[in-house]
């Protein structure tokens, strides 16, 4: 029945502030109606936003005229296949690989790190860059920290690098930088995205000002929001308002963590260690300035320079045939939903992921699978 899912979602929001939740849901409905036209699409670029939307059933409270799309917001999902391959090749050479948990099961061209581990490679799951340092101190073998994540996570890598690494530790950086990919999505000819909800924690580092040139160039509003259901609803209300009034600007709705200039000390460390360079994001496109790579001054700890990484050694393993049907890229570009993929929940499950989006706890496919297949129940509410 229309309405029931919405009512249930609203009653689940009760734990916080039912009056505010209902008021925001109603405001969102009104603002969207005031647009007086066919569906409006907005994109968030944050896995944690998608988790909150799915977990709290927020999609069922969104008005019919509003599409909230998950963009390339998960650093695991957009780590490109050749980057995974580099880690796999190093692991098969006998080097210890330390990496964040979700990376282990992300498919490479033919193998994931988990596959390499099954063959005997030494893979270590860590939660913090500091643990890579400890691991290296505990052995005389070579250790490579396969470092992934957006700017929020890259600052931690920068801090351990600046703290000085043990001689047997090097860094394989697959870090990514969010602001440039918004340009790519905004410029895709098929894109219908009219505004962005930016993630509170990445903006904690970069500050809200980083989005100002983007807004000026593309005339699309950006609202920075936190991760509470009410934060997300309030962010969407503001975003739809800005679209309605044709007043594109950056609005910071998460001032408790985000300032205009951001964390300057973290930025200084980030750019001291890394430079941004163009590179592919899995399934999306080549993103100019979207990759963070070690600066030349840190060549001696760059795994790409310390080791010869022979990617061709993987080519005799056949790539998995199913991977060709994976539509992760379209999902992250906002053109498709996980349920549009014919492998979703069938051949592709969290236990046997075909694409990266089914691996990460911030991947759209995994989130939709975990929270009930098709969380978008609000179509006729």
């Amino acid at each position, binding site marked *: 029945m229309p309405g029931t899912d919405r009512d249930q979602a609203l009653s689940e929001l009760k734990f916080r502030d039912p009056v505010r939740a209902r008021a925001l849901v109603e405001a969102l409905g009104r603002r969207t109606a005031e647009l007086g036209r066919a569906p409006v699409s907005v994109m968030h670029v944050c896995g944690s936003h998608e988790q909150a939307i799915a977990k709290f059933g927020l999609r069922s409270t969104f008005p019919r005229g509003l599409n909230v799309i998950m963009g390339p917001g998960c650093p695991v999902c957009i780590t490109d296949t050749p980057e995974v391959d580099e880690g796999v090749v190093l692991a098969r050479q006998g080097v210890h690989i330390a990496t964040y948990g979700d990376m282990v099961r992300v498919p490479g061209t033919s193998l994931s790190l988990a596959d390499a581990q099954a063959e005997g490679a030494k893979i270590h799951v860590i939660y*913090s860059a*500091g643990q890579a340092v400890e691991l290296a101190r505990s052995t005389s073998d070579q250790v490579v920290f396969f470092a992934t994540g957006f700017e929020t996570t890259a600052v931690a890598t920068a801090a351990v690098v600046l703290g000085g690494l043990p001689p047997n530790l090097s860094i394989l950086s697959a870090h990514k930088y969010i602001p440039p990919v918004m340009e790519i999505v905004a410029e895709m000819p098929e894109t219908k995205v009219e505004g962005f909800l930016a993630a509170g924690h990445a903006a*904690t580092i970069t500050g809200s000002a980083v989005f100002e040139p983007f807004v000026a160039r593309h005339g699309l509003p950006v609202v920075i929001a936190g991760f509470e259901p009410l934060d997300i609803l309030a962010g969407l209300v503001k975003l739809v308002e800005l679209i309605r009034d044709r007043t594109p600007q950056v609005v910071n709705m998460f001032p408790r963590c985000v300032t205009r200039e951001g964390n300057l000390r973290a930025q200084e460390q980030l750019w001291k260690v890394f430079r941004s360079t163009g590179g592919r994001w899995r399934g999306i496109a080549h993103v100019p300035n979207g990759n963070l790579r070690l600066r030349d001054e840190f060549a001696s700890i760059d795994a790409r320079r310390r080791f010869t990484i022979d990617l061709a050694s993987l080519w005799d393993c056949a790539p998995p045939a199913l991977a060709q049907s994976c539509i992760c890229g379209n999902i992250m570009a906002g053109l498709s939903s996980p349920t549009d993929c014919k492998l979703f929940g069938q051949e592709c499950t969290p236990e046997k992921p075909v694409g990266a989006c089914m691996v990460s706890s911030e991947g759209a496919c995994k989130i939709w699978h975990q929270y009930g297949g098709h969380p978008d129940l609000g179509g006729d509410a």
Partner: protein
Amino acid sequence: MCLGVPGKVIEVAGNVAIVDFWGVRRQVQLDVVDEPVAPGDYILNHVGFAIRRIPESEIGETLALYEQLIAQAEQDDLMAEDVRNEIAASRDDPRAGN
């Protein structure tokens, strides 16, 4: 992998703080936080590093979501899992249990 978790600073020793996350005490690195941190402050912890000192007036709101997530603590809840991983990211307080 990037949610970040607030915790209360118990003690500061140079570059490292002992931080309490709902009764779990952990070491958090202070290398990247942009303001001086003192016992009693709250910080946002991400992969073992404090990335922000949370202004005092904002603590209540910031903690509420996490309290909810931790209270539910269902095994297969992705968001709660990210929160638990963030807490696991910092090192044990070496003196815990003493």
